[in-house]
Each structure stands twice: as structure tokens, then as C-alpha cells.
């Protein structure tokens, strides 16, 4: 989608106008009402969950949950119309909105209906969290996220997006930056929404190649390289030097070298390699040197005679690359039919940032550090209002410009609209078929 790329490049002018105010979590309750009333994209949000009303009850049986101030958690909400949803959001001003599955009945009736709730359909969702990369992040840890960290997310989104498209034939992926340290992906194709629990688990495991033994992540390629791994390698390999060797300088400490060693599953080979690396380098040698030695050693061992390096460790170089840069999925989120996931366009209470869609094809240009905070957005609309006030002495609603278009949230909403446009086009052609 080239037209989208250009739009992402043109920064809305609003951001440059004044220095963004710092976000203060204490005044979030005061800001949320304005945000929900003026900025939250209620109409597209509803259009998404209604799926062109392609199936009965697809919107009204959807479980929505609100988290209110002080962690008051309300589950099993459901709404009859867009207006009702909008009204509820604007009166309750939730800290967080979660989206659950579409149920067999109205979720709010869960107590009164015999047999209870059964989920009928739900988007196939993926959750990738930067904290799962903590053992290989030297720049940040925990909830922090900088541009270097984002590169892990970027690769994860690229690898996953293309796998979902090419292998499973899915088209409608909605990618979301969660507002702090992770990304979500909602696969909204009809088949994806209707996968049963077993199929979800199979897809999750197909896409999750890391296995953990004693907390050490490993990847096993096997005899031949499955096409999905080969493709992932093509994406990951060009970034390996930049991310692992330069940005993170991962093997630049004895601890880092031992991480590399742990990924070699054969004990004998591991101690041989360790001796070799110790002999060739002093402690703290740059990652690049260590890596070059490692690759050279593995290659030379492989060519000599039939040994463990030419059999079990045949693909060790590729395995290490995948192990470090292949998406680290929280597969339980994907497996669960019932799992609730935070809705796009919520405000992350800790950072104040909008949980905003991004385009997987332009993920390289997305910068999580400049994602607007709620404080910034409110300032932006105020500034806009001030500027236009002089020649707008008419009643308040005369301006048909949507408020979010006046702010730096604009990009995200455009991505969302674009996603919706394709999704709905799908329903139109479908309905004409019949």
C-alpha cells in the first residue's frame, strides 16, 4: 500500500507547534472524558466490530470489558448499537477497554441463560511483548522501550505478517502498538475468526519456533529448512549485524558469550567452541569479532569430517539468528478462544500513549517514542481550536472536520480506516457473489 507510506511520512504540523507537555498519570481521569468525546474514533471502531453486519449478532454478542479507575473491572458488557457503545464509553470513561469473543448469546445475560456463555468466534490474536526479549536487550529492560528495542518488534511484525499472508492466506491483519512495550496483531479474516481452539493452538505452535529448556531458548531447524523458516531468515539476517552485534553488542561480555554458547545444544561441541573463543579473544571483545569467529569455527568444523557440527549443528548459525530475532510470541494469548485483549485507541495508563494501529509494511518508519500521549493530543486540539477561533464565530458543530484529524493521532486513524476499507470491500464482493 504505497499511498499509505507517503501519508505516514508527512508529519501532521501539530506536533511541531509547541513542546509536548509531559504526561501526568494523576490527571488522566480529567483528560479521558475529553479524549473519548472528541478524539476516540467511535464510528470506525464500531464498523470494525460490526464486520459489515456479515453475520447475525456479530456486534451485539461481543463481549467488551471496561477497566475503570482503581482497577474496577467490569466484564460481560455488550451493546446493541454504536450509539449505545459510544454513550457508555463517554459516561464511564474506562481506563482500558478490552475486547473478548463473540458469544452465542448476549454476554450480559451470562447469569440467566442455562449453559452459560460459549464463544462463537473471535479474531486470531497475537501478542508480542518486549519484556520477552529482556535477556537479549542491553539497551532497556522491563517496560521501557526505545528505538533500538523497537527493531525487535519491527522484525517480529514483518516475519509474522508475511507468514500469515503467504502460509495461511490471511489478508486482514490489524497491527497495534500497545502504548508501552509491545505489539498486538488482530487477524480479522472470516476463516481466522472461526478457527476452533485446536486450530488456534496449531497455528500458534506453527508460528512459534522457540523451545525453552531450562530457560534457554533454542531453535531446531532439522534436516531441511522449512520454507517458513527460510523466509524468516531472509527477513532477519540482514538486520542481525545491526541489531545484535551493533545496537545490543550482545556478545560483548563474558555473560553474552555464554548466551551464545548455551544455544549450542551439544555439550561436547559447546565446550570445544568455548575453548576456541577463549583462546581467540579477550574478555569484552566486540560482538562482531566473536560472531565472526563463531561463524568461521562452525563452518570449518562442518567441512572437516562427519561430526556433530555437520549433523545436529549443521544449521547452528541460522538457528542462533532465528533464536535471537524470530518473533517471541506469547502463544497462550493466541491459543485462547476466550482471551480478552486491549482494544486499539485506548490510552495506556502508565505512559499516556495511545494504543495505535500501524502498518506492517511501513513498520520500519513507525516510531513508538513519538506516539502521542493523551496530554499532547488535548493540547493539539486546543491549539487548533485557538487558531481557528478567529474566523469561526459560528455554532460549535459547524466544523465537520473530525477532531482526531487535527492531531498527531491522525496517522493511526488513517491506518485503521485503510484496514477497514479493505475489510469492507471484502464483504461487498462477498455479498455480490450470492
Amino acid at each position: 500500500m504505497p499511498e499509505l507510506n507517503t501519508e505516514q511520512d508527512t508529519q501532521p504540523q501539530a506536533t511541531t507547534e509547541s513542546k509536548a507537555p509531559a504526561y501526568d498519570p494523576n490527571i488522566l481521569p480529567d483528560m479521558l472524558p475529553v479524549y473519548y468525546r472528541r478524539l476516540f474514533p467511535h464510528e470506525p471502531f464500531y464498523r470494525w466490530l460490526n464486520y459489515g453486519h456479515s453475520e447475525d449478532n456479530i456486534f451485539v454478542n461481543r463481549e467488551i470489558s471496561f477497566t475503570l479507575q482503581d482497577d474496577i473491572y467490569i466484564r460481560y458488557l455488550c451493546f446493541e448499537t454504536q450509539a449505545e457503545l459510544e454513550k457508555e464509553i463517554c459516561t464511564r470513561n474506562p481506563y482500558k477497554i478490552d475486547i473478548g469473543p463473540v458469544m452465542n448469546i448476549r454476554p450480559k445475560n451470562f447469569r440467566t441463560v442455562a449453559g452459560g456463555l460459549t464463544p462463537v468466534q473471535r479474531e486470531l490474536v497475537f501478542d508480542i511483548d518486549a519484556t520477552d526479549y529482556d535477556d537479549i536487550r542491553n539497551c532497556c529492560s522491563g517496560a521501557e522501550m526505545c528505538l533500538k528495542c523497537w527493531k525487535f518488534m519491527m522484525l517480529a511484525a514483518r516475519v509474522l505478517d508475511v507468514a500469515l499472508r503467504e502460509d495461511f492466506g490471511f489478508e486482514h491483519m490489524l497491527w497495534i502498538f500497545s502504548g508501552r512495550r509491545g505489539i498486538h496483531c488482530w487477524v480479522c479474516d472470516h476463516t481466522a475468526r472461526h478457527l476452533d481452539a485446536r486450530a488456534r493452538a496449531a497455528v500458534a505452535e506453527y508460528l512459534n519456533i522457540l523451545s525453552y529448556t531450562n530457560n534457554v531458548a533454542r531453535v531446531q531447524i532439522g534436516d531441511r529448512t522449512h520454507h517458513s523458516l527460510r523466509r524468516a531468515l531472509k527477513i532477519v539476517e540482514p538486520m542481525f549485524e545491526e541489531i545484535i552485534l551493533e545496537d545490543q553488542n550482545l556478545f560483548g561480555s563474558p555473560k553474552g558469550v555464554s548466551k551464545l554458547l548455551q544455544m549450542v545444544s551439544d555439550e561436547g561441541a559447546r565446550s570445544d567452541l568455548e575453548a576456541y573463543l577463549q583462546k581467540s579473544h579477550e574478555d569484552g571483545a566486540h560482538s562482531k569479532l566473536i560472531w565472526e569467529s563463531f561463524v568461521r569455527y562452525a563452518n570449518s568444523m562442518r567441512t572437516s569430517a562427519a561430526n556433530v557440527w555437520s549433523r545436529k549443528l549443521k544449521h547452528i548459525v541460522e538457528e542462533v539468528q532465528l533464536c535471537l530475532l524470530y518473533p517471541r510470541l506469547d502463544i497462550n494469548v493466541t491459543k485462547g478462544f476466550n482471551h480478552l485483549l486491549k482494544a486499539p485507541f485506548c490510552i495506556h495508563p502508565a505512559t499516556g500513549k495511545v494504543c495505535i494501529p500501524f502498518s506492517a509494511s511501513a513498520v520500519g518508519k513507525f516510531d513508538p517514542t513519538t506516539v502521542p500521549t493523551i496530554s499532547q493530543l488535548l493540547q493539539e486540539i486546543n491549539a487548533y481550536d485557538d487558531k481557528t477561533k478567529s474566523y469561526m464565530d459560528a455554532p460549535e458543530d459547524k466544523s465537520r472536520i473530525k477532531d482526531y484529524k487535527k492531531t498527531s493521532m491522525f496517522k493511526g486513524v488513517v491506518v485503521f480506516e485503510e484496514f477497514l476499507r479493505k475489510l469492507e470491500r471484502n464483504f461487498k464482493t462477498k455479498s455480490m457473489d450470492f
Partner: protein
Amino acid sequence: MDFNLKKRARHDVKVEVISLEAKYPHNVMLYHYPPTEDIHIDEFEDLALERLRLLRVFDRATTKGLRILSDDWKEYVNAEMTKDGLRGYLRMGMASSGTKHEADVQMRRRDYLSHFILRLAYCRSEDLQRWFVAREMEFFKYKFAALSTAEIKMFLDANNFQIHPLTEEQKDEVKDGLYESTVGQSVSKIELLEFYKVPFTQVLDLVRTRRCYIKAGFAYVNTHDMVSIVGARQLEEIELGMQAAKAFIADVEADERIARMIKSLHNSYTGKDYTVCRDESVPIESLDQLSKTSMPLCMRMCHEHIRSQHHIKHGGRMQYGLFLKGIGVTLEDSIRFWREEFTKKMDVDKFTRSYEYNIYHNYGKKGSMVNYTPYSCLKIIKEMAAPGDCHGCPYKTMDPTSLKAKLSAYGLSAGGIEEVMYFVSRNHYQFACGKYFMLTHNSTVEPTINHPNKYFEESQILMGNRQKRAPGPAPASNKLRTGIKGGANRSMLNGDDDDELWRIAETQEKVYQSQKGIAEAFDDDLDLTEIIE
């Protein structure tokens, strides 16, 4: 006696004569139509037990961590089937020679019927059902893997599978992907193999393990992996069937004969017979050492009780005495062992009078001459221990605090005790025992413990003191029991059977003893009197 499974009044007697071969045309059939023929209750039980033994073979293969359909797996399964006398089922997993034997067709019938019988027993709870379905699918794959390409075609036609192999052109379009991503086949083989294109949701097991090429939502499956497609249908078939079985289980259970059997089926012991030990004899001098290393908790506690108290009550004598016989303590040694301990508290005369007889009895040398079978876990778990008793399953009978103290005294770490107690708290005593085994043997594989003698044997094998037994003929003692009970298999069905045997034996004893006028034999602690009560 005819036995009508469905309990539905059938007024018209069917006079259809369908040959067995028409009814069961293939080795591999989807279990779709429930059988309607009448079968004798004896056969009903027989079929059920046979299939249970079959499924347990697959269970053991899985517990051992063998990958399904791998060579190791097949080898193990085949060996176990031979050992368990399941040659008929074994033949179903062999490539057919082309000639049809009457026996093969009979076997298909057994296969078909027994599957449906076990559905009744296993639809009773989620857990049982999960176990059953997993094992049935393993057996299904085992059978299917033996089919030739022609047989697979026949099977697909017979069951209306609408799948067709790719044409050469179609295959050519995706050939790079096939070469790269078809696991388990060489490139040259892939060129020859036929491939089928199916929605990925039909072959989830292949998708999950990345064993096939997958593109745009379709998986490309070769003939060898066809079992995944067919298996998905079979799975659905069984799961639906189980729901149906659940619906009419109440009707079926109205017949007490069946109700009793299917309720106890899963827990019945069909394992190895330890009546006659075929290993080298174990000297009693080594018992102290062995009790620490190789005996399960139940036996170790009995042993220590005898050593400290120089006496053990009837239940304990039976449980421990038969166990000793099973591990290879000879009759002579056994008598010496009990005598040495007991005479620390009583004179030799009293021992000879009151206890010695019982030992001979256990070894099948006195009275009814029945060679008694060592107790299985199931029987031991069922034992009701009274105060002062030390037999029974300690995981069940001891209160958690003293059990923890015991485990700790036996050298388990706090963490280890927690692991064992986890299972105890959920009433999984055999798992607890297996965990104890792993911890005390530093073993990474958890053995399935269903018999204390198995525990002992596994332990000895692990320590290198014993060889794994080569598959051999069933122990001769089976014949002995067959003579008495009319079927060794069936006598394993419920754990009370040994008691029944006792009663028979005991009646004969009483006659014998009253005739002899050995009144003093019935003193305070005579075994036979205890059983009467």
C-alpha cells in the same frame, strides 16, 4: 445367554446373513455405525479387556516419550503387543500379504466391537475420554500406516473422502515448497509421491509441527501423511460417538453385569503377572539394602515394620509376603526370613503352627495349591487399613503430615516432597509413587507404576542389576489359575478376586483342618479366621 447391548425391544429377529467379510471389509474402518449384533457377556468382557491391554501398550509407548510412528515407536509397540499376547492386533499393523485369512476377518470384528464397548467405559468422564481418544487415535494411525497405496485408495473411496491427488502441472507449480518443507521424505521420493491439497484446518497436527508445505491456507500432504487427514475425520467420529454413548449410558448401566465391569474397567490391572518370578532369586540378606533402594514406599514400610516390631498383621503379611515372592525370594528363604523375625517375639513352635503354613500357602505349596498373585497397586490402594496395620498404600492411608515426615526421613528434599504431595492431594497415588521413584532414582522418565513388583523391577533395571526381560511366553501359572477360575484374564478384572479365591481355599482348609482336629491352629492371629470376618 444372549446379551442385548441396546436394551431395546427387538421384535423381529433379523434373518440377515451377511458374511463377516462383507461387514468388515477393511482392516482400517472408521468406527461409524455402532454394531448391532448380539454377543455373549463373556465375549463382551473378553473383548473389552483385550482392547484395554492394547490401548495400554500405546499408553506405555507415549509415556516412554517415543514419537508416534517413528521406528522406535513401532518397534516398541510391536514388541509389547507380542509380549501381551495381542498378536491379532499386531497383524493388523503389518502390511497385508494379500491373502485373506479367516482369522484376519475375525480380528477386524474384534477390533470393531471392542472399540464400541470401550466407548461405554470411557465416556464417563472428561479425563477418561481424553485418555481413550488419544490412545484410539494412536492405534488408528498404527493401523493406517501399514496400508499400501492401493488400500488407502480403497479406504478413501469407501469413506467418501473427496480428495484427489495433484496433477503433474499442479505439483510442478509448488514443487520448490514441497522439496523444502515436506518432512520425512527425500527429494527423490517427493518427486514420485502423490500430493493432496487440503485446507490447513484438516491437518492440524502436520501444521503444528511444521511437517508439510503450506501455502495460502492450504496444506500439501503426501500419501504417507494422509493419516493426518483421515485421522481428523476419525477423531471427529469418535468424539461424536462418545457424546452419543454418554446419552445412553444410563440405559446400559441398568444391566448390573455391565455396569460393574465398565465402571472398574479403566482401573483394572492388566499388567504383567508376577505370580511366578522368572528372575534370579533374591537372597533375604539383601532385603535391608533393597528396601532402601528399590522398594516402593508401601513395601519399604512393611519391611521396616517387621524389622522393628518383629511381627506384622495378616494384611501386611499377605501384601509383603507375596511381593517378596514376586521379586524372587525363594520359599525356603521366605520361611527363614519370617521365622527369624517372628521368633524374636514367640517360640519356634508357635511360628511353625500359626504362620509357616501360610507361607507355604502363598507359594502354592499347601491347601488349594493356588500360587497367589502379588497384589497390584489397585488392590493395595483398595485395602482398608485398620490401626496397627502397616499395609495398604501409604500415599492414601497416611495423613499428609506424617507422610511428609516419612518422605523427609527417606531423604527427599522439601521440593521433592512438594512434588509428591501435589499428586497425593489430588488422589493420584500412583503418580505420587512414580514421582517418588523418579526422585529416588534421579530418573528423568516417570515410570507408570501400577504394580509394586513393576516398581522393583524398573528400579533394578535402572540400577543395572537386572536386564529388561525379553518377550517370552506368558507365565505358566496363568494356566494354573485358568483351571480354577476359568479365565485368568477375567480374574484380574476386580481386585476382590483374590479374596474369593481365599474363600474357596479357606473352606477347603476348614474341612481339612477340622478333620485333622488341629484346634490350636485357630488361635488369636490366624490368617484364615481373619478373612472370614
